[in-house]
């Protein structure tokens, strides 16, 4: 087990599946689906094994896999004393407490979405190839320990997503796909620039051994963190004139804000959210499961990993801003969710609202806040996946998800209605279900830092109840319309992912230690970093 490159296996099994699919004739729908399902189930099993094998104590970064990948020698004319001078990107995968749950979440939601995609109507082959490609990209994003690799995987997710939305979506799908691509493209562009600046300054390392002097640019995030925080002699920390590698505070702020915007688009932070509304309404529901369940998390993940952990002092100073943005997200999303007439839009805005909780947890800058943010990520991933799974199944039967047109479905589809109710309850943060833990921890954290902000944000809890109940009850309660009286309840293939997701939602809600244990090391490491950064400000 130790020798097995588990992460590579997880990340590239879907890709392998996609390659296999290339050789399957496109008429073989059943075969294609089976292969795709297997290609998502294997990573799920492996991810579960990974989760089990992860050691909660000790070095939080585990399962490291590192191979030299791209190494570009650079011109060292005029630098005679230098032995070698290069630019290196490594194939560098690992997981820590932060990425581990997200890797598992990805595996889980992808497998469920693959099941839910069974009722895609056209071009299964291309669909699943895109789907599997997307999954590989998502795994990579959460595992990559190198900026370049991260960027690569991040981009890999965009392309299949574009096609998945653009080809298999609803009426306005092309517009949605374009909007998705443009927004995320801009985000990626900004992220790329920020990364390049980081690599070009922080990533510059001079290694001196006996008689060799090696200069290198590296995208390794551990190297970068080392240069930033542990090595006072690193070029980046030396404020000498004409040191092109020094990062002034202004510079750090610039990069931090760039990262905030780049990942803020993905997260999405108000006012960069409009693109995701379209994707939520226009993409096929199984893809929205992925989108809302995982892709949005990539934004938060990136924000934590690169924005907060690379620039803790700046993030700390911006904490109030983050907190206020979080509250705006929560309340703005919730208030809009209350007035939507389309259930998918209700859910879209509720996603915005929930992502605000993540921001709030981040802004708290203490262990509970950070932990809350991670909990909220995982839990929202599960819940929104479940909700969109239901939306897909309901839409398949009723051809609409307009709140006004539906009603009383509890009569004809009691099972799905029950699940919908559970999902809704989880979404509004009912204790005993996963949504509560994240909300609780994030608010606990924020309350320790900015009481007023947290108190205002807590209004969102009420609003969440309002919009969730409004949405769920309009669909399931009330008198039933005649045309929906005969629709059938969930088939087995739909029920399995529903029950699985509910099970995980319950598990997290009832016994959150499952998630909090592996998190501890990482979170306390982060906390120390943040505190030392805070001390830095004070001093």
């Amino acid at each position: 087990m130790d020798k097995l490159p588990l992460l590579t296996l997880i990340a590239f099994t879907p890709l392998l599946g996609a390659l296999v699919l290339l050789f399957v004739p496109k008429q073989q729908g059943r075969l294609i689906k089976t292969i795709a399902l297997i290609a998502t189930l294997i990573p799920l099993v492996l991810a579960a094994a990974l989760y089990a094998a992860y050691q909660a104590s000790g070095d939080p970064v585990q399962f490291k896999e590192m191979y030299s990948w791209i190494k570009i020698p650079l011109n060292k004319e005029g630098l005679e004393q230098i032995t070698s001078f290069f630019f290196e990107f490594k194939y560098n995968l690992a997981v820590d407490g932060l990425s581990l749950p997200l890797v598992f979440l990805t595996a889980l939601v992808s497998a469920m979405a693959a099941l839910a995609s069974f009722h895609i109507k056209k071009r299964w082959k291309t669909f699943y190839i895109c789907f599997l490609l997307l999954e590989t990209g998502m795994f990579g994003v959460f595992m990559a320990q190198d900026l370049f690799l991260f960027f690569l995987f991040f981009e890999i997710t965009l392309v299949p997503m574009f096609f998945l939305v653009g080809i298999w979506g609803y009426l306005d799908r092309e517009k949605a796909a374009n909007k998705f691509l443009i927004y995320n493209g801009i985000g990626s562009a900004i992220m790329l620039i920020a990364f390049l600046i980081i690599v070009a300054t922080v990533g510059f390392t001079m290694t001196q051994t006996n008689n060799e002097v090696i200069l290198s640019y590296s995208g390794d995030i551990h190297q970068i963190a080392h240069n930033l925080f542990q090595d006072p002699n690193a070029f980046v920390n030396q404020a000498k004139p004409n040191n092109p590698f020094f990062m002034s505070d202004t510079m750090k702020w610039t990069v931090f804000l760039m990262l905030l915007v780049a990942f803020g688009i993905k997260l999405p932070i108000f006012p960069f959210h409009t693109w995701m509304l379209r994707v939520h309404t226009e993409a096929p529901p199984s893809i929205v499961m992925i989108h809302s369940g995982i892709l949005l998390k990539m934004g938060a993940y990136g924000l934590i990993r690169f924005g907060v952990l690379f620039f803790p002092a700046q993030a700390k100073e911006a904490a109030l801003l983050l907190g206020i943005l979080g509250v705006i997200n929560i309340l703005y999303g919730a208030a809009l969710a209350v007035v939507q007439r389309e259930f998918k839009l209700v859910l879209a805005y509720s996603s915005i609202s929930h992502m605000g909780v993540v921001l709030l947890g981040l802004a708290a800058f203490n262990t509970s806040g950070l932990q809350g943010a991670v909990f909220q990520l995982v839990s929202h991933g599960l819940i929104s996946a479940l909700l969109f799974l239901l939306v897909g199944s309901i839409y398949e039967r009723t051809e609409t998800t307009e709140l006004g047109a539906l009603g009383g479905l509890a009569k004809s589809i009691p099972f799905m209605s029950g699940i919908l109710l559970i999902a809704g309850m989880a979404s509004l943060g009912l204790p005993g279900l996963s949504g509560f833990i994240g909300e609780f921890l994030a608010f606990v954290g924020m309350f320790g830092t900015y009481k007023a902000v947290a108190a205002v944000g807590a209004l969102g809890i009420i609003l969440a109840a309002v919009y969730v109940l409004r949405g769920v009850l309009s669909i399931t309660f009330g008198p039933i319309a005649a045309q929906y009286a005969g629709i059938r309840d969930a088939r087995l293939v739909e029920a399995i992912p529903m029950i699985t997701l509910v099970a995980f939602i319950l598990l997290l809600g009832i016994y959150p230690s499952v998630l909090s244990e592996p998190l501890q090391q990482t979170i306390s490491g982060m906390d120390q970093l943040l505190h030392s950064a805070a001390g830095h400000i004070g001093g």
Partner: protein
Amino acid sequence: MANDFTSYAWLVPLFPLLAFLVLIAAGRQLREAGAYISIVAMLASFVLALLIFFERLGHTTDYTWNQLKWLTIGDFQLNMGFEVTNLNALMLVIVTLVSLLVNIYSKGYMHGDERVNVFFSYIQLFSFAMLGLVISVNVLELYIFWELVGVCSFLLVGFWYFKPEARAAAKKAFIVTRVGDVGLFLGMLLLFWYMPGHSLDFSAIHNAFSQGKIDPSIATWIAILVFVGAMGKSGQFPLHTWLPDAMEGPTPISALIHAATMVAAGVYLVARTMDIFQASPDAMLVVAYVGGFTAIFAATIGTAQNDIKRVLAYSTVSQLGYMMMALGLGAATAGIFHLFTHAFFKALLFLGAGSVIHAVHTQDIREMGGLAGKMKITAWTFAIGALALSGIVPLSGFWSKDAILSAAFEHNQLLFWVGLIAAFFTAFYMARLFFLVFAGKPRSDAHAHESPAPFTFPLVVLAVLAVIAGFVFTPFNGWLGHWLGDHAEAETANWTVMILSTLAGLLGIGLGYVMYGKNSVSRDIVAGNAPWLYTLVYRKYYIDELYDVVFVRGLRLIGKAFELFDIYIVDGIVRLCSAAVVGIGRLGLRLQNGQVQTYGLATLLGLLILALALAGRRFFHLG
């Protein structure tokens, strides 16, 4: 000091949970068995609760177990577990007993409903949550169960999901209590940060607050926030509006959840965290005044309602106000005592009302009448309940109300008079209710008959309890106060209070009798002479309408405004950006007119502008 049964207290909520799981899993296949499973589970819980109760009789130390590692927050561990105090033990008995009786009752009441097993499973879930709430070891655990009972209440109120009114009522119940829950939530967060060691355990809270380790201003904040939570659950003004609407649910539910147990959870919460309140006189005062106001406010509304269950609902709100008032006055035992007696006679009244509704298929008291002859057991038990509620000697209600009023008489005269007037109104609307329903002539031609045994058995049991339950704590017998650990309780008989409260009760009943029993005073005396007053009371002081305008429409308005903002400003800016790009493109394309000389000119102008802008600044020093 044996804790043989007490250490198994966690089993009490577990039985209903198991029943719930069985019912959910097996679903419709169970048919009739569902009800029996529920009853058996509840019976097991009840027996265990009784055993624990008796075991506790001699004890004063609490039994605590909190070793379940639930969540780690940095260096801090949040553990779960359970705690049995004397207060808990009493609550366990009340909840299991009422729940058991309601289960039995429901077997008859819900007979024939196709989702009867769903109904029972909800009740089991509720019982589990309520019992869990009672034995919670810390505030977070309590909050979790607190929310769970809220959900169960929501589910049961909306049990007849196809009725739009049920849907609305369920939604309202959930959302309004949620408002209170947010208060509790924030209070809990405050506690978390200000408690030494971040401990949320009740025992730790007790120690910290009774030893004055917490700043009083913080204590005030925490107390008020916790009280907001209690207000939501216990229907205190201004968060009372959901409770009357919740009567859309099946009647046994009204008895169990909305009269005896869940709504009392707020009172229980305040009693459980009494140390916090005692650390803050201001908060105590707030509790007392809110309670007192709610008591009289809801009692007046109760006089003008025509729905049998709504009358009882407002009565519940009013009685909960009494309890709160007692707690706020520092008379915790009196409050809990009233909770105890109220649980029995209000459950009795609701079940009686259910029996009536079952018989006549209407809830409007104006369409009933003369049922006493046809439904003897129901009428008698209902009368006992009504008398107990009205505070007539020697029924249980008298003793508990007297305890509260004595406390008020001693500490706060204003609240005493408020309580007294409320007692008068209580007696009046109960008399009105009783005479309209059971006396006089039938006003509809429904063939009412006595309900079967599953109905009447709980009624009788509860009626007995409503009679005798009061004797555990009288001015002549202060045992309960000692047992609950409240040494400040006054034990001397206050004859003034007793006489005044009895008078108020009798006066109310008398007025009810002359207006509705003998019809010697016109019923429309108020409606005729002061129609605005009648309408005001009848429309419940327009609170619902006010909330509708301010909150519901307000929120919708804000939402709409945000939506416009989202579409036109946020998205508008985005569109503006894309339009700008397209505009640049258009501008550029306009240049491409096919004329080679234009092209040349553009090149030339481009060169000139570029050169002037870039070189010019060097030569003309323009920056």
